Every structure is written in structure tokens, then in C-alpha cells.
């Protein structure tokens, strides 16, 4: 089992004690293989720090981050990432953006083109394969970013509020598309969001994070059967879980904003 494991992890930023910010404190989290895990929490709670640890873009001040039995020390292609701001390469076409990761490890041209074309098709952008990112809408850009991450066949997909910048209609279409692809690929997903509906709609398990310093304060298995579509968001089970998350987050948001 290659699970993602955060053991008693703390992350602090800043050099001097006085100005130090503690993003995460004594956080424990285990994400089993193939789980669609969602971390939901107030903004600035350290959700993204958590993701950066797994991506290998940052290291824990204390504690261990493991992928299977190996310590995560730097980024690697087995842990793909979809950032919030797309971060596409503006000088490459849609097709070439998706091929980027494959070109890095010298995959043959024919295989590279075929694999990339498949993922471009999976995200519904075949008609735009020769377009440049500047010609695409936000939703389309994010679909390219997802295809680019999947093309290198990572074992874990890390998604940092990937739909946060999209309008709500586009966002719900993207959520359904993501589930459709995930249903086929069955990769481990770690998805960060502050949107409770999004968390419940997508996740197998929703981890609720506290205000800074971030800890997991609730773990909620989402027993809504798959495949899911938008109608589940108004079902009784969904609403009940939503209320549970809202009540625990409510106090945390107050804390984060220093209201009470």
C-alpha cells in the first residue's frame, strides 16, 4: 500500500521566534491508496502548507511526511500537482503543455503524442489542442492543467483549490468532469478547498482543518454512493454532513478572524 502519511508534522515560517508563524502543528493524517481525500478549512489555516509537504515543495519543521515507506524530501513525478493559478506554459500549445512532463523523461515522440492526445480528449479539449493558453478560458486552462498532471501517470494527484478562481457554474461542471476522470483512473487524490459543498461532493473522506495553527479537527467519511452528480448536493445525507462541517468550521472562522 502506498499511502500518504503525515506524522506529527509541524510547519513554521520565519527565522526568529518572535515573528514566527506556525502554519501546522502536530498534524497527523493518513490517506490510503485510491482515496479521494479532501481537506476543508478556513482560509489561511495551512491547508496549502499541508499540500506543499506532500508535493515536496516544502519540508516539515518537525515530524515526517511519507509516501509509502519513503520520506518525501523533494518533488517527484509520482506526486502530480494541479495548482490554483493553472501555471500553464504560455509558450506551448495545449497539446505541448500536456506533453511537457513526458518530454522530460524522454518518452518517445509517438507515445508522448498519443498519451497527451488521450488526456486532452478526456478533458474535452481536442478541438483546442493547437491553441495557446492565452486563448483559453479559466475553466479550459484548469482542464489543461489536470490533463498535464495526469499525463505523467502520477500515483497521487495534489489539487490546491483548483477551481477556486472559476465561476460557480463552471466550477460544478469541472467537479463532475474530475469525478468522471477519477472514476476511471482511481488515483489517490488530495484535494484542498474552502468550499464545503465541493468537499462533500468530491470526497470519500473530508478532513476538517482548524484555524492556524492547522490541525485536523474532524474526519468525515462521505457515504454517498458513486457515481455522483449535482443532484446529491441537495439530498438529506449531504445536507446533514454539510451542517456538521459548518458547525465545526464556524468556530474556527471566528478564531481565524479573531472575532470571539
Amino acid at each position: 500500500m502506498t499511502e500518504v502519511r503525515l506524522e506529527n508534522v509541524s510547519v513554521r515560517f520565519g527565522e526568529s521566534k518572535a515573528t514566527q508563524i506556525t502554519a501546522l502543528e502536530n498534524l497527523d493524517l493518513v490517506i490510503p491508496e485510491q482515496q479521494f481525500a479532501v481537506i476543508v478549512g478556513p482560509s489561511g489555516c495551512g491547508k496549502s502548507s499541508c499540500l506543499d509537504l506532500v508535493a515536496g515543495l516544502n519540508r516539515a519543521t518537525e515530524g515526517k511526511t511519507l509516501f509509502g515507506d519513503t520520506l518525501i524530501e523533494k518533488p517527484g513525478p509520482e506526486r502530480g500537482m494541479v495548482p490554483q493559478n493553472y501555471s500553464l506554459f504560455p509558450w506551448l500549445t495545449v497539446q505541448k503543455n500536456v506533453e511537457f512532463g513526458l518530454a522530460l523523461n524522454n518518452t518517445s515522440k509517438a507515445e508522448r503524442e498519443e498519451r497527451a492526445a488521450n488526456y486532452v480528449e478526456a478533458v474535452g479539449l481536442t478541438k483546442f489542442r493547437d491553441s495557446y493558453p492565452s486563448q483559453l478560458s479559466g475553466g479550459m486552462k484548469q482542464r489543461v492543467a489536470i490533463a498535464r498532471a495526469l499525463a505523467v501517470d502520477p500515483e497521487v494527484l495534489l489539487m490546491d483549490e483548483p477551481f477556486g478562481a472559476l465561476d460557480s457554474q463552471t466550477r460544478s461542471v469541472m467537479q463532475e468532469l474530475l469525478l468522471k476522470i477519477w472514476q476511471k483512473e482511481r488515483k489517490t487524490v488530495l484535494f484542498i478547498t474552502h468550499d464545503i459543498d465541493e468537499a462533500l461532493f468530491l470526497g470519500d473522506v473530508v478532513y476538517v482543518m482548524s484555524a492556524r495553527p492547522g490541525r485536523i479537527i474532524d474526519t468525515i467519511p462521505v457515504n454517498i454512493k458513486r457515481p455522483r452528480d449535482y443532484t446529491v448536493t441537495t439530498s438529506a445525507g449531504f445536507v446533514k454532513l454539510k451542517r456538521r462541517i459548518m458547525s465545526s468550521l464556524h468556530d474556527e472562522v471566528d478564531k481565524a478572524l479573531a472575532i470571539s
Partner: protein
Amino acid sequence: MSTMSFLDRYLTPKLAIPRKTEFGAGILVSGTILACWAIATYTGFVTRDFLPAPSDVWNSFVEKVSNGSLQKHIGVSLTEIYLGFFLSSVIAIPIGIFMGGFKIVQAALEPVVNFMRYLPVTSLIPLLILWIGIGLEEKVAVIFLGTFFQQIVMVSDVARGVHADLFNVSYTLGATRGQIVSRVLVPATLSGVLDTLRVTMGWAWTFLVVAELVAASSGLGYMILQSMRGLDPAGIFVGIFVIGFLGLITDMAFKWIKRLVLPWEYVGK
């Protein structure tokens, strides 16, 4: 649109105007300047020993072309400027990219580069003449020193502006550090580097003419100086116009190159 008044249409900031009007406005202004010049000289309002008439400049131009002297001076100036500019760019671009991409390179080079950057290259001309004379090498050296440090600073700013997110996402796609430089940092700076070249090329022309005015035996700046000594303002004007047109052509060439190598910046436009 049709009901818009003249004021609404042309005095709203950033509002697009018809292409014809755009073209016409340019012609109108250049035409007016030319007309003022013609009227001032042909009516005798300004003496032609002071300001030559358009036809005087044209005659001087024809004479310089037919005796071959203009071509020779242009040839010399172009050789000097392209050689100096090319040498400077070839070295400054990679240094600038590394300076913007790596903190250690920046820390090491910044003091020297900034010192040299604020040193007017014109102040170095006497020293350069003492060291390497007044020939081609000296002009190339002036242009090189004048553009090199500016280019380094401008290119390093471009490279520093490349968003770290692009690097991070590339690492998660399996990029090595070498690949980050060759496949992300370098292509990401391309557009800004071309802009830098275009801007510094304009400065290079200035340095060239200054160097030729101070000491030279040929070149457009020398031609202008000779015309001054011969009390021939028409010859000076020929030199100025030729420099202006050569600059204009160079600038157009840069725009054309940019379209060619950066197709993604022009799609759908």
C-alpha cells in the same frame, strides 16, 4: 456608435478608433511638421544657411549617394553597431538570465554591474581612445560597454519576474534543475529579452554617434561632424535622417522577429 459625438468618440481614454482615423492622424502630424519646415525655408522666413530647405537636404542626399560616400559611412556605422551590439547581447543575455534565476549569481555580480551601469559610457571614450585608438575596435568597445551592463540588469529583471509556480509545477512533473533552466526559465524570458534588445538597440545608436563625433575617420557621426566643419547644414540633416530611418528599420525588424519567434503572444490579435 453612430450617435456618439466627436468628443465621446475621440476623447474617451483607451477607446478604440477606426483604423483609417489612426492612419490619418499620423499622416496629419508628420505632414504638418513637413509643411511648417517647407514654409519657413522657402519663404525666406529662416535663412537657408541656418535651416536648409527640404530640397537642399534631398540634393545633398543625392550627391552623397552618387559619389558613394553615404553608402561607405552607413556601412561603417552599421558594422560597428551590429558587431558591438551582437557581442554585448550574446554575453549579457545568459549572464542576465542566470543572475535573475540564481540568487548566488545575483549576489556576486550585482555590485560590479550596478557600478558600471551608472558610469556614463561617454566618460570612458577618452580612455578607450588611448588604449585602442579611434578605429572599429574603439566604436565596438563603446557600444559594448554602453549596452552590456544595461542589458544584464534588464534581462535579470525579466528572469526574476518568472513566476516560481511555473518552476514548482515543473518539478512535480519530474523536471531536473537543468531542465528547469532550459525548458522553463529560458523560454519564459524570451519575450522580455527581445524587448530588452529592442530598447537597448536604440541606446546603442546614441553611443555610436557620440563615439563617432568624438573621434573617427568614417561613419555617420563623422559625416555629420565633417558637414558642420564645412558649414553644410544640409549634410548634417542627411546624416540625422539616415540615422532616424536606420533606427526605424531596425525597430520594425525587431517587431517582425518577435512575431516570428513568439507566435503565442500574437494569436487572435
